[in-house]
């Protein structure tokens, strides 16, 4: 029992508990959501956010921050809605190039020792620029198979829940449980020690940025699958949502402390917070502020747990 209540355990449980509390409140406010159909509608837009949060989490894990993620996902969404639909081969190549560009960014940031915030902030304009070139006016259409996948109605469990679980578990095993993942996370905790042990920090950073790019691509594709079309600004909100989701899910800005399961939960929590507030009939002008308050509440709880942990 006492093992269950260690600070690490509480840290892990907190995002899940926050989500459960929010979900309970939503079910109470709007019983209609407590159904297959309701959960589907409530959660389907959280899937691309969850993927974006996972992408941001990889960056957070190596003590960097990606301020271009929203713009990047908009770009991949535009590519998905145009090239991937019209000429799949070119589309796949373009998306692969996006991932490669992210890996190169990681290398640049590491080699020149540049602050990632500045580099990615600059890149966000580049991504948006390319997105406008790819898709000058809103439009395009989702490739059929993505649309089919995103609107899948499996028996019993709604698709968004299955997707969230699959995403969380895949990344959890890859990053948290595998031997290779340990090195990637260690690089966030103590890069010097990892380097001393003979690992290449360059490779670590490239890998992490490439993974972020890969999940960014997935996020863009999932988003187009839901909206059926794209525009160059479609996912700009995702930059901040992904950072907030990662932090809400138990991640920290420095020190390589991240949690994929937490990140997915955090993303869903943020998406649900929006629904919750609109079910409350809160004036939308206050909604962003209220989302911020929810974020602060959860973080304050985490701080409380941490300080209790250090006192113990």
């Amino acid at each position, binding site marked *: 029992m006492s093992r269950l209540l260690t600070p690490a355990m509480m840290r892990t449980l907190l995002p899940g508990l926050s989500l459960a509390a929010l979900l309970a409140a939503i079910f109470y406010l709007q019983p209609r959501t407590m159904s297959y159909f309701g959960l589907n*509608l409530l959660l389907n*837009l959280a899937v691309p956010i969850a993927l974006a949060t996972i992408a941001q989490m990889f960056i957070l894990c190596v003590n960097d921050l990606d301020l271009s993620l929203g713009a990047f996902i908009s770009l991949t969404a535009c590519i998905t809605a145009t090239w991937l639909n019209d000429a799949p081969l070119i589309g796949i190549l373009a998306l692969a190039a996006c991932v490669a560009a992210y890996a190169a960014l990681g290398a640049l940031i590491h080699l020149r020792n540049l602050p990632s915030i500045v580099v990615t902030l600059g890149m966000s304009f580049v991504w948006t620029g390319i997105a406008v070139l790819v898709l000058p006016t809103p*439009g395009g259409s989702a490739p059929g198979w993505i649309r089919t996948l995103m609107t899948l109605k499996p028996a019993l469990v709604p698709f968004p829940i299955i997707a969230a679980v699959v995403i969380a578990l895949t990344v959890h095993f890859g990053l948290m449980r595998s031997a290779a993942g340990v090195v990637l996370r260690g690089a966030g905790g103590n890069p010097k020690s990892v380097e001393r042990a003979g690992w290449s920090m360059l490779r670590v950073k490239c890998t992490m940025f490439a993974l972020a790019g890969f999940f960014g691509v997935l996020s863009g594709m999932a988003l187009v699958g*839901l*909206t059926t*079309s794209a525009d160059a600004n*479609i996912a700009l909100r995702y930059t901040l949502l992904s950072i907030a989701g990662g932090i809400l899910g138990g991640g920290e800005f420095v020190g390589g402390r991240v949690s994929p399961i937490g990140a997915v939960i955090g993303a869903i929590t943020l998406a649900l917070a929006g629904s919750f507030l*609109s079910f409350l009939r809160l004036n939308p002008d206050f909604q*962003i502020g209220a989302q911020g308050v929810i974020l602060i509440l959860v973080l304050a709880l985490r701080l409380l747990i941490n300080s209790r942990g250090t006192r113990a």
Partner: protein
Amino acid sequence: MKLTTLGKLCCTVATVALVTGSGAFADTSGKKIALSNNYAGNSWRQAMLTSWEKVTGEAVTAGVVASADAFTTAENQVTEQAAQIQNLILQGYDAIVINAASPEGLNGAVKEACDAGVVVVSFDGIVTEPCAYRIAVDFHAMGKVQVEYLAGRFPDGGNLLEIRGLAGVFVDDEISGGIHEGVSANDKFNIQGSVHGDWAQDVSQKAVAGILPSLPDIAAVVTQGGDGYGAAQAFKAAGRDTPIIVMGNRHDELTWWKEQKDANGYETMSVSIAPGVSTLAFWVAQQVLDGAEVPQDLSVPFLSITQDTLEESLKTTQAGGVANVEYSLDDSKAVIFGN
């Protein structure tokens, strides 16, 4: 068993016949309608929301519908509005009226709504999803009507100056296209020059002042709204005779027109879209819920002000605002079924 089924079938057929016959049959007093709006940051949108509130408030009080709430997203983002629409579905609204952030980005959410049996009506910022109703503004006609009016004023034709809107925007192309079509239909008119006024008085004034010295006598100025007052000032500054300038329903334009009318009997017309179109969308949604057969694509009539209605319109228009018109159920029916 067999009989009852048959009986039911008969009833259904009868109902269908009745609906198509009378146009309004079902009771909508228990129905809930929501407005999903992507942006509220300018005076036109504010007027639109005020109109919605006023007209739907009366409808709710009168028991026509149970509720009609307006929801505006905070960030004018597609993903945010899509989530909002899905939330509205979950909240059990029977119809959702949408002013969309993107013509296609919301299609996924709109499809979800249709699949859930929710009536979707889009206006102003319309959506392309086929299951939704669209109340589109016929900007093309808005351009054309100006030339038609001028043709009545100048049977012998004359030189025109065209003030366009913001370059590269769909609306600008549409209105201009309508004007040009009107001109080719009345070949006595000649467009002598064309400038971009960006729908703003100051920009228009500068642009017109810049092109005036190179122009012959101008009989009339065709505009897109928000630019008439600036054009008048430019003509005045250049010391030229004031041509017939088509106005765009803005308060300053109407005021100027009134002054001229009182001083020298100046005559023109004014045309633009009324923000009250949101109330039309509301009635369309109500009519659909009512069981009326409404065409999937409707066209919003634009709001014209003539010499006779000038005073009245000016009185009801707020300073800095736009002339507005709100639709009653009967007005809406006239739009829906009238043509």
